[in-house]
């Protein structure tokens, strides 16, 4: 459903943000994309959803090439950015109506699609208020609802749990599971490794623009089990070289 082949992207000054990345996400799969800050997660996601063009490589969404047919490829996606930059001057309803227009959701079915989501995320009371008056969590929720109205086969979420209350966070996880059970795919980035460990069918770890590990969580644990049972967090710290020696940790407090 998502296929990235040899995808690379550099920024000014020759900094390679993503380096020859190969990735394949299949239908019915929740894929967790992990990596330290600045590893290239957001750049990868921006290329995947068509905001950035890769310098090299190709991207396919649901079998449609993002380079050759970007409009059709984008219609296969529901995307929630890491910081939901929405139009503050629109009401939540106006925003959702606009999204329905651009994705071609017929007027007759808009309310029927939106209402259950608005009720689930407890946003119905606020939907006619300007987005500028929303809290961070409410913005995140309205962006999540907007990303699902056209019922996309592929759902891409960049740090979706940030700002959500525990109830909404739980509901989102349930929705992700339900989405893949219906044959869709979910690709999401997160720093919350416990969530990735419990929710994802497979995880990929990106570090300095390179995909350094891709596997199911259990297989990854087996692979790193030489020195005993390890959590995903410990594996992540090990492969990204983020574990500090004891003496360095002690010096931070001095």
């Amino acid at each position, binding site marked *: 459903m998502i296929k990235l082949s040899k995808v690379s992207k550099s920024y*000014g*000054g020759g900094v390679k943000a993503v380096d020859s990345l190969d990735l394949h996400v299949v239908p019915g799969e929740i894929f967790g994309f992990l990596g330290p800050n*600045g590893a290239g997660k957001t750049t990868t996601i921006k290329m995947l959803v068509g905001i950035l063009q890769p310098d090299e490589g190709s991207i396919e969404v649901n079998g449609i090439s993002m380079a050759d047919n970007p*409009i059709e490829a984008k219609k296969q996606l529901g995307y929630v*950015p890491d910081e939901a930059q929405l139009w503050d001057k629109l009401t939540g309803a106006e925003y959702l109506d606009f999204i*329905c227009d651009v*994705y071609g959701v017929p007027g007759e079915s808009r309310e029927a699609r939106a209402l259950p989501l608005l009720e689930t995320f407890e946003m119905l009371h606020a939907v006619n208020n300007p987005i500028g008056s929303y809290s961070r969590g409410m913005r995140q929720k309205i962006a999540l609802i907007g990303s699902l109205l056209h019922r996309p086969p592929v759902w891409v979420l960049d740090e979706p749990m940030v700002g959500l209350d525990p109830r909404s966070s739980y509901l989102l996880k349930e929705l992700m599971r339900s989405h893949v059970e219906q044959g869709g795919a979910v690709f999401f980035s997160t720093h919350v490794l416990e969530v990735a460990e419990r929710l994802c069918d497979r995880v990929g770890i990106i570090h300095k623009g390179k995909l350094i590990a891709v596997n199911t969580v259990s297989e990854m644990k087996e692979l790193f089990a030489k020195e005993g049972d390890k959590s995903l967090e410990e594996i992540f710290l090990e492969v990204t070289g983020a574990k500090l020696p004891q003496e360095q940790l002690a010096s931070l407090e001095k």
Partner: protein
Amino acid sequence: MTGRIQGFRAKGVRKPFWALLRMQFKVQFNAAKVAESLGLDDNKRRQVYLYLGLMALAFVPFTVMVFKYANMLSQVLVQANQPGLAVILAVMAGQLVVVFFGLSHLMSSLYYSSDLEQLQSLPLTPRQIMYGKVGVIYAGQLAIMLFVAGPFLITLGIHLSSALYWPLALVIFLLIPAVPLGIGLLLVVPLMILTAGTRRRDMFRVLFGLLFVAVIFAFQYLNTNMIRYGPDTLMARLMEKDGLVSVAAGYYPVLKWAAWALTGTDFVRRASGLALYSGISLGLLNLVIGLTQGWFLGGVTTDTGASAKKPVSEVRAIFARQRGTIGALLLREHRIIARTPNFLLTVLLNLLILPILMVSMYFTGGEELAPFLEMILGAQAKDVVVLAMVGFHGVVTGLNQVASTAVSREGPMFWMSKMIPVSPKVQMRAKLIYSLLFAFVQLVILAGVGIWFFKLGALRFVVLMALGILVSVPVSIICLLNDLHRPKLNWTEPQQAMKGNFQTMVAWLLSMLYLAAVAFVVRGFYLLGLSAGWLYGISATLLAISSYGLLTWLDHASESVYVKL
């Protein structure tokens, strides 16, 4: 189940482009946006209509005056058999205004836009995004054109009394923004591409702003120098019908074509004028949109480029320096301005634009001003000039936006000022000192240009500097007080704090009232025949006393208002 959500379309689907255009119009022109532009909080949105009504009322005399002037000019030009010149004036004035305001709107809607990434992730083509953005700006410019070009075209139509004139005039009017917006896009989009993902993005923004000013001056220079002919040729052209049209549009034939379309002597000339004007205007804008939309695909919005690492020694050196409280606050004020391109550009333009205007005035006939003043004011002319320049510096200080946005510039980070262990009084005094330092730089430039202009001599230069410093204090405090009471802290884009902050205008008007009161008193003593020394002394005393009073007010207000913000 249906009808529970207001604003949802009940049937069918809008075309994506129309949905985008509709949404962009809502975002730009709804009540909340207007309230924000006027510096009103969301909960005071009802006042928007009151404000707009008052502003419309304030515009009535201006509009009447413009119509009267346009009417008089159109009548004279029709009588002189030069009606095409009125068309040229209308289109030229309109396009000049679009160059100024339209480019600034293009920068806001494209360069400083925060929604481009979101739009790019939607199933919209870059061409649709570009047309949507430009369409909204275009509509805004047409609204401005109603007050700039509209009066000339309407009054000319009345004097020409031709039925064919009106539909053609409508076409000419509707296409006025096309060429300048096309040129503007050619400047803005390459800048976006040039700066996307680079670490020197901020520097480019500032350089572009200065380049923009240079373009405006070049345009103005061309306008004022487009008549290249001697008096004999001009008189000969005056005798022909619309003979002045080709003279006035020498550098820029678009103006000539507009004039041909509306006042051409025969059908062929009118038709060719209309075809050329419309073709070039629409063609250029469409060509530029077509060209620049392709550049969007390269990713013009990203800011995700990795930042350069500072060497450890440099970081150590930064931490090793220790400053006092005021020093640290001043440095913070300076860094907020210097590291925010929008702020830096605004203050740089405020710093330079008036001296540049004065110098350009000097070279376009202003050198005769000094002898003229001496002729009508006699021996005291230079002292009057010194006092006038002090007043002028006060006006400029009120306009420079450094003091009038000192609190607003902190924006969403203001919480930090409330929790640092430094009293609000000290913080506001630091803001005052920073504003005064900026006003001083402005004074030095202004005084330097003034001395050259009016040959004032060393003693008067000293007096001008002393009084200039003194006048900066009360004016800056008035601006600070206004910003302290009505700061704009909830901005999401820096330009909302400075350029888009309506309260800067209020602060300037308040400082103008203060300056008018001081000028009124000093003028009274001048009319009584007091010598220059006395006038300087009285001015200094008035400024010093009011400064002390206002400073005391600022100190008290800081302590009482800061906590409530």
